[in-house]
């Protein structure tokens, strides 16, 4: 396989992958990544990706180094480097993933999204009712949580993870999702975060391409993006991750309005 991809637009993309047998990308996986890069470069001609490589080639060591530590234990799975216009993959961990998110997993996330959206709306409604009745804040929270849990049990969703927590692990605010349950953006952020936690080569690659496209067209600086994130700032680590995660989510499904709105800004910035 040729290691250079020449397309109209901004320069060539060079691919460098370690030859490591089972501890690196197979030829099929390399071709899959290359196909994704080619397709997005075709769609976004201003996209500049000079190099796509793995940690082994980037760092010159196969299993560990000072920057990433032991690759097999490293939390970084893929990294977009703006200065170098490169994308690098943790070949030890990522090569063990499926190419695409399994259909059943995607279906489960989208079913969960619909349920979370209902719970979120229900919680907002319940809070208003209790407030109008003069219920103290602590009592409101307790009632809302109890009803959300009961709803989940009725629907048979995540009942196995219902424990001592107020919410099942699947719905509880995550590391970057600090929005309250009744926030209008809660369900959309939840769904984007669930997709972000799914593990596939496609998901990781598209996320990093989301960063690269944003860099190429100034998406994260666009005022429409700033307006969008202002509604759900506590749901994401920062505006760069908001852009990349929403772009990724919109590429995996059309079901999440927040992600689709961010993707529309991507298209507008790119003149598409």
């Amino acid at each position, binding site marked *: 396989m040729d290691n250079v991809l020449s397309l109209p637009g901004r320069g060539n993309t060079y691919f460098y992958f370690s030859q490591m047998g089972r501890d690196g990308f197979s030829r099929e996986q390399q071709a899959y990544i290359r196909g994704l890069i080619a397709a997005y470069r*075709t769609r976004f001609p201003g996209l500049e990706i000079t190099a796509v490589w793995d940690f082994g080639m980037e760092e010159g060591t196969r299993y560990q180094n000072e920057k990433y530590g032991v690759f097999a234990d490293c939390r970084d799975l893929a990294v977009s480097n703006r200065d170098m216009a490169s994308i690098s993959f943790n070949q030890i961990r990522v090569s063990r993933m499926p190419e695409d998110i399994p259909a059943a997993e995607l279906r489960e996330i989208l079913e969960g999204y619909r349920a979370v959206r209902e719970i979120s709306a229900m919680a907002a409604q319940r809070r208003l009712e209790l407030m109008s009745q003069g219920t103290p804040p602590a009592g409101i929270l307790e009632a809302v949580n109890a009803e959300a849990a009961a709803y989940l049990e009725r629907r048979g969703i995540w009942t196995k993870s219902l424990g001592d927590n107020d919410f099942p692990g699947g719905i509880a605010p995550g590391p970057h999702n600090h929005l309250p349950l009744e926030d209008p953006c809660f369900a959309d952020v939840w769904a984007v975060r669930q997709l972000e936690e799914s593990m596939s080569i496609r998901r990781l690659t598209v996320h990093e391409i989301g960063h690269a496209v944003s860099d190429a067209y100034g998406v994260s600086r666009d005022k429409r993006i700033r307006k969008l994130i202002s509604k759900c700032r506590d749901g994401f680590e920062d505006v760069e991750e908001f852009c990349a995660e929403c772009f990724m989510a919109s590429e995996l499904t059309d079901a999440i309005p927040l992600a689709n709105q961010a993707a529309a800004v991507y298209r507008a910035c790119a003149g598409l």
Partner: protein
Amino acid sequence: MKTLDDYIRVIPDFPEPGVMFRDITTVFQDADGMQLAIDSMLEAVKDLDFDIIVGAESRGFIFGAAMAYKLKKPLALARKKGKLPWKTESVDYDLEYGKATLEMHIDAIKPGQKVLIVDDLLATGGTLKASTELIEKLGGQVAGILVMIELAGLEGRKKLEGYRVDTVIAYDGK
């Protein structure tokens, strides 16, 4: 009970002597025939995992649209040259006499999406082969190809080696 074959009108010696033309307009014209055709096509791919249907111009649009509606999946169009209004990717391919071009909008397929190509007929395989190339150019993964009729005598399948091809009716001749 009528079979799908019963709804297809056969016209001998059209468009040239020796050819048995299989006219599927008679399938569309009959409500039961249309339902049977769509149900049969859905049945053929019920075990296939795909994200989007691509209908090949022009009768692929009819089958593709009905299937997409039933399965609640998106539909993208692969059209002949010059029909699409926005930015396109294209593939040229050979016909028996001359060349043709197939086009799709550059954002019709999201890279990595698993695609089912739908058309009415597999004859020499030229259009379907071009469709696979076009989809792959756009970053899609061809999960399968589905046609209602296959003219097995023309050996179109050979051009599509490596892809899953499902047909509802196969005729031995040309």
